[in-house]
């Protein structure tokens, strides 16, 4: 990928840093974290996206050597899976609100342990691996959302029950939309990684 050291990448990296800092400002944090839906479904995904974009800006040979050093795509996927699962736990949300250390861990781990390794692994995953990640993620999101909707108790100390229910509904809706979108990409073809007909396996496609 030629564009890595180009002014484009530098500008992008700069913008990315600014957005990261912006997300970390107390005002934005307060607003995002005031509601469970925004906390889980806006702030956290944005942190992951920052990790994803950042990783893509690195030169391809860097990405490859990091990937080789950590042992290939499977460990990357596993790390991303565990790190993201952790932040789906209600306890983790509470901790992030009450404990500055946990908040910092969230700001570091979501980009570095979820977004980053996913991009590294994505380049090497075929449709089977990617499909596995997607179907797993989507059904987890749906089931977790459902659990939030029907939970008999308040699962987070910091959020009210109705907030929890709303977040649950958003998660279910998001999972349905994601699933439809993913199926749509299969139907019209295109982004399927290294096995695409034109063998363009750069991992720059999402699905």
């Amino acid at each position: 990928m030629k564009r890595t050291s180009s002014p484009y990448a530098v500008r992008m990296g700069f913008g990315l840093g600014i957005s990261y800092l912006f997300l970390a400002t107390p005002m934005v944090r307060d607003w995002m974290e005031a509601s469970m839906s925004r906390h889980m479904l806006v702030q956290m995904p944005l942190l992951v996206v920052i990790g994803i974009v950042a990783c893509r800006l690195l030169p391809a040979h860097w990405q490859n050597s990091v990937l080789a050093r950590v042992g290939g795509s499977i460990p990357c996927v596993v790390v991303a899976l565990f790190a993201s699962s952790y932040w789906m736990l209600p306890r983790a949300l509470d901790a992030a609100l009450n404990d500055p250390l946990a908040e910092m861990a969230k700001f570091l781990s979501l980009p570095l342990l979820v977004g980053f390794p996913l991009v590294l692994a994505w380049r090497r995953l075929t449709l089977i691996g990617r499909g596995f990640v997607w179907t797993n993620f989507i059904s987890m999101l749906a089931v977790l959302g459902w659990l939030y909707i029907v939970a008999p108790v308040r699962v987070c100390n910091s959020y009210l029950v109705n907030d929890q229910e709303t977040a649950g509904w958003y998660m279910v809706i998001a999972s349905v939309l994601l699933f439809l979108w993913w199926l749509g990409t299969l139907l019209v073809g295109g982004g399927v990684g290294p096995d695409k007909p034109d063998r363009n396996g750069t991992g720059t496609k999402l699905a």
Partner: protein
Amino acid sequence: MASYTYTATPDQGAKAGVLAYLVVSAVVLLLMMLFGLLMRMEQAQFISIGGLWFYKLMTLHGAGMVGIVALAGASIMWHFLRQYVELTTSIFIANLVIFLIGVVMILASVLLGDFHAAWTFLFPLPGNSMGMWSQGAAALFMGGLLVIGVGFVLLHLDIARAIIKNYGGLGRGLGWPQLFGPDDGNAPPPAVVASTMVTIVNLIGLVVGASILIMMLVNLYVPTFEIDALLAKGMIYFFGHVFINAVIYMAVIAVYEILPRYTQRPWKSNKVFLASWTASTIMVMFIFPHHLLMDYAFPKWFLIMGHIIGYLNTFPILIVTGYGAMMIVYRSGIRWDMCSRLLFVSLFGWAVGAMPAFIDGTITVNYVMHNTLWVPGHFHTYLILGMVAMVFGFMYYLGKPDENAKDSPIDIAAFWGFVVGTMGFTMSFLYGGKEGAARRYAEHLPEWIPYDRLGSYFAALLIASVLVFIFRFLTRLGLAGRDYQRASLARSIAT
């Protein structure tokens, strides 16, 4: 313009994996049929195994049959699809291994844990056993289904990958460019179209099924996480119905691929063919409410949708396939051997078996007929005389010693035993249903018993015939893996 000429391709032998699938299928099929016979004999009061064993057998029979026909269907699909796209053998084998693990879990749950809430595991029954089975047994059963589902997800993902790689997208696998644009004659072959359809609907069905299974597992251990029973039923039937429907769409690939070899007439994917498969891809997913017509709590539009789509979806693929088969066979001088006979009769069985469902899908009829033996009458017809006949046809095809091999009189007798046995067996269900015999009752009223007895005799005849089919296949396993011409050319071509 599209050109429709036949291009001969060599008959390929089956890979070891396909044979492993088929051997497992044959053995399990036979065992489950024996379980079915025991149930029917219990209803007929020929034997007395008691309610507990009846429901244990019913649970095993339901789950076992649905799983095993899916496995057999997958082996047919994989065998032919592999000739067009590059499939991954290791994933195919992994699915078999995962399947067997799931089967062991289910067997343990039913046989050791006494779980007997039927294969539909309808909420909230598995969690409310009133002491008849433990939480662990219910969890093991649902876990087993989940494990089997994971294997199939992997298999379908591999198929999706391979089709996308070769054709550039699942839409192209369904032949959309040819369907919606000019037909350039380059539409994917029927085997690819059918596999694409099955892959799409099964992936959706399995994700929904996995979600409800996990929810029920959570609910099992933490009952305060309440599940809406109506929603659970909807999801279970969506998953179950899509999955069992997909089975016949996999197996019919054998008809598409093998019959043309006999008469050297092409089975091309023309526009009508493509349109019907695309239409069914969507309809198969909306047809399941016809099982829920009695649940008045569902919104009305939902039930009406089930009624209408149930009517519509009965036909496209069935007619296109039946008509296509007639065109292949009509005045071709086809030579009837066990394979071509079974494949041809399978279309008859499919068509005949669909009719009772069509009738039962009518809301007013449904109020009276649903939950009677009419329903098992419907699905046993299309599954045994349709789907299972396709599987045995495929087995005979693989094992046929040479192009001109003659069938022994025993096989021919078994063929007729199979047809007559199945028709008699399923008619006994249908007639019992018409007379009001309830479904899923271990004990029947005296008025129903004559049908049960007749049904048992016919079932025994059917099983005896199946024994011949299976024995023949097992003795010919060595041939099944080799590449050579199997289909005997029709008289019009051979002479």
